[in-house]
């Protein structure tokens, strides 16, 4: 279907609390790096896709205006894609469809967020419906903690086991982040540190939660012909899937989570994947909360429902396990929201092209990138492979 599309290069900022740069300069840092990575120049770009989280996050609306120069987009065709937390993957999808349609050969995708300029939880509270729901689902942790409890209750996962598994996920990802030069939070934590951290929203504790990061990510998508002409090792888009569900939290089941299940299935079908745990070499799952990461393993068919905590504790999803998940440290260690989904795509592309440096999974050929957004509502997937 359509034309084959490849990712030929990526650029990321050093994510973190970046008070040393302005918001446009942060964007510029990622864009300069993708041009350095690919050896291309702005004249080579046929179109630009930009995206971020709500205006309220930084107090600036329609940011494609503000970043026209930083994205090297002056005079270029532009699209602006926003789908809340899943924005990053939706940006990648937009760039994919643009190139695949034959209308552009080379498209630059840019995602960005400077969360330390605003109040992220206040912003996310304004996503919730104002009359009925906002009173009890303020911010992100409220929604995710209810989801976690629904899940553990449904499958009878004991409190002791889930706390162990969540702590294990947190410890391994915090360790992984040391091997990722761009990661934000780099602290050594122990199982006890996680289990005894202060409660944010029960059962979620401080070290189960992602940080507020400043960061940007830029990725260049190219047609088969352009990718071959440029001649770099490319990550080929093998599948794209996206699903969204009801706005009112409570209208849909967030455990057997249809948007996550169906988004993955759509992407797997396109990529010809039948047994994801065996066939995928690495997955960059959107994991702002440890508990949610485990639920995604189940929704994506990495294991049966209710079984992920056991497999986590066996090490199935660590960097040396059967299916390494988030070897970059994931969202848990770095979360500039509008960029986060695109960082998952960039990391997956780096893995299948052998460019992930110290956190490279040896021989990775097929990778999954994912992002989630809305009121536990949207899930988007992109599968990347090292072969066309």
């Amino acid at each position, binding site marked *: 279907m*359509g034309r084959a599309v490849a990712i030929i290069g990526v650029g990321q900022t050093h994510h973190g609390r970046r008070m040393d740069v302005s918001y446009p300069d942060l964007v510029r840092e990622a864009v300069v790096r993708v041009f350095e990575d690919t050896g291309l120049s702005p004249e080579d770009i046929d179109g630009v896709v930009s995206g971020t989280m709500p205006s309220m996050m930084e107090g600036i609306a329609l940011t*494609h*205006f*503000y970043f026209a120069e930083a994205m090297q987009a002056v005079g270029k065709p532009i699209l*602006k894609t926003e789908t809340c937390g899943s924005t990053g993957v939706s940006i990648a999808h937009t760039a994919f*469809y643009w190139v695949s*349609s*034959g209308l552009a050969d080379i498209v630059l995708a840019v995602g960005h967020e400077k969360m330390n300029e605003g109040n992220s939880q206040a912003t996310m509270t304004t996503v919730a*419906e104002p009359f009925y729901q906002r009173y009890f689902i303020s911010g992100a942790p409220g929604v995710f903690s209810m989801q976690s409890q629904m899940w553990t209750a449904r499958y009878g996962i004991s409190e002791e086991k889930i706390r162990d598994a969540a702590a294990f996920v947190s410890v391994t990802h915090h360790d992984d982040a040391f091997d990722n030069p761009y990661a934000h939070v780099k602290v050594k934590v122990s199982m006890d540190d996680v289990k005894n951290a202060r409660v944010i929203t029960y059962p979620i504790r401080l070290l189960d939660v992602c940080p507020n990061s400043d960061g940007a990510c830029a990725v260049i998508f190219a047609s088969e012909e352009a990718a071959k002409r440029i001649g770099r090792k490319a990550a080929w888009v093998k599948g794209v899937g996206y699903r*969204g569900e009801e706005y009112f939290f409570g209208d849909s089941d967030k455990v057997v989570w249809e948007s996550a299940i169906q988004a993955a299935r759509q992407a797997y079908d396109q990529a010809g994947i039948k047994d994801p745990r065996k066939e995928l070499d690495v997955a960059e799952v959107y994991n702002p909360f440890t508990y949610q990461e485990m639920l995604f393993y189940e929704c994506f068919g990495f294991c049966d429902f209710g079984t992920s905590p056991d497999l986590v504790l066996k090490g199935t999803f660590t960097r040396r396990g059967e299916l390494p998940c988030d070897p970059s440290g994931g969202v848990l260690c770095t979360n500039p929201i509008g960029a986060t989904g695109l960082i998952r795509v960039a990391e997956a592309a780096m893995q299948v092209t052998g460019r992930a440096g110290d956190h490279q999974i040896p021989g990775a050929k097929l990778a999954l990138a994912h992002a989630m957004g809305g009121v536990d509502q949207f899930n988007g997937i992109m599968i990347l492979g090292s072969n066309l």
Partner: protein
Amino acid sequence: MSRKVAIVSVAQSAGAESKDNFFDQAYRVTKEVLDKAGITRDELGSVVSASSDVYHGGISCANAYYWDPTGAFLKNASRQDGESLFALMYGAMRIMTGHFDTVLVIGLCKGSENPDNETCTLMYSDPFYLRPLGLTETMAAAFQMKQYLERYGIEKEQCAKVAVKNLGNALLNPYAHRRGRYSVEEVLRSDLVVDPLTALQCAPKSEGMVAMLLASEEKATKMTKKPVWIKGFASALDAYMIGDRDLLDSRLPAAAKKAYDMAGIKDPAREIDLAEITEPYAFQELLWYENLGFCGEGEGGKLIDRGFTDRDGELPVNPSGGVLANNPYVSRGLQRAVEAFLQIRGEAGEHQVPKQVKTALAHGVHGFAGQCHAVAILGS
């Protein structure tokens, strides 16, 4: 182009404040556009919406809010920010790839629940340099208008004629928000907003749920006898700081050229039968005539003097009344395409133009003094 894309059906809400809530308004146009095409929600491939959080009644992540009433439940759907013609473009791309056969494109903006557009466009200003100056779209447009008058000797009366024409055209458009028979004198004497712009030369703040169903050639020809084809489209972004730009030398010619090339148009003034263009400020319609190649540089005033763009002129522009008559900010670009569709099909009702329309242009713009333009060419 890999696959041809057609518009099968359209629907829009009226521009005046509605007592319906957002969900009902959005649902109504979604249902109408699917019913007109004779398909159910289950058969729909994808949804691409357009909205902006700053124009969304204080609720962030706008598309999370209206996901259900726009038919997107468990669909692979997406959203564009700022300009609804972006959604038309992205929807068309999705069909061109072969991944989807039908895409619902919908722009959503409930103006009555938003602050003044001025308050919203102030949020485009960066917080350090521009916002303390209070730079808004209207102020930027006033700078642009002054330059336009000075450089080309355009007269204020010529600019006012745009408002006279469009608000008069709107008398025949049941969806228009503001309409009336005004004289040039009345337009110029209406309240001063930002010198030299007066109130009747500035667009109002309106409501607009605007939808269309796109389909591949194979599906479209089964759903309608009169598909309207998307022949070409492009957008172009300009520099951010208005001081970095020549405000009369916009990126619209670049966007138009790409769209014309795709559609095989060489002489736009002759080959385009009708245009619906976004003119939130009256003089901009004249400037955009020039940028779209309808006339030479500095000749926009002469073009309107000749009646060239009147409803019964050689190239009618904004027979619907345009954005001066109806301004649902984010949805207005797509509304231009909806009006172009209706004119091509001969279904524009009382404001149907006398001439036969085979090829029509839809234009959208947003940002200070036209920072970002979008153009789409539709044809029978």
